[in-house]
């Protein structure tokens, strides 16, 4: 995985069933992405949060997945490792045969940062 244990770390997982789980993650402030995004003003890149959702979906399904389509992904607040070091990534992955329809929410107790709907297919 590209960003697990580099941009984020999974501290715990509440698995409801094969299609639903909540991942409790920490954003890692020493990730090298913050050197460039932005110098002196670390802001978590939105695309890294998208990748974090993809990697959580891979952890949930146990499959190597590709982000084939994003129907809609709203970035509802600016995330930084200082503002929201602890986040919950709630993932639903419904199987479609060659992949999954995934909906996900990144939030902490205060607010939500990303709402995602998309299609992840098996990487083969």
């Amino acid at each position, binding site marked *: 995985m590209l960003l697990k244990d580099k941009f984020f770390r999974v501290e715990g997982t509440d698995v409801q069933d094969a299609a639903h789980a909540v991942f409790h993650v920490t954003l890692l402030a020493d990730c090298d992405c913050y050197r460039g995004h*932005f110098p002196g003003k670390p802001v978590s890149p939105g*695309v890294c949060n998208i990748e974090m959702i993809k990697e959580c979906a891979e952890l949930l399904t146990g499959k190597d997945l*590709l*982000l084939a389509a*994003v129907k809609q992904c709203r*970035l509802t607040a*600016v995330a930084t490792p200082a503002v929201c070091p602890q986040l919950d990534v709630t993932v639903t992955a419904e199987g479609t045969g060659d992949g999954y329809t995934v909906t996900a929410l990144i939030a902490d107790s205060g607010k939500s940062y990303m709402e995602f709907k998309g299609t992840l297919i098996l990487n083969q």
Partner: protein
Amino acid sequence: MLYEGEAIKTLIPQRDPIMMVDKVWSAEGDTAVTGLTVTDRNYFLEDGLVAEPGLIEHIAQSASAFAGHRARVAGQEAPIGYIGEVKKFRLYRRPAVGEELRTVITMGTEVNGITLVRGEVRSNDELLAETQMKIFCE
């Protein structure tokens, strides 16, 4: 060619290791053409291919470079833009190290600081990815 290499830094706030545009070929009206050569140092490289979020970031930074160019032409500072929404992204193929991406950005009208952007990423005329996004500037 309008901008290349170091000159891109006058247009966008992103820096290494996460700079995802290295050329602006043209910018006219609502359309700009940008580029990125995929190197083995690319931040989003996985198994020799640029992962999907890297293509989205390339499109976002291409739009940011276009906005930065427009600001320069108007004698203003380049704005910092954030992605507000990604919509209708489609991945067709991930590019490999050595491929030269060429991306067409179409900028919509700005309403309340939010601009609708379309991006299409090609390599040798093959469409690799496309998306719409909303960018908001501060």
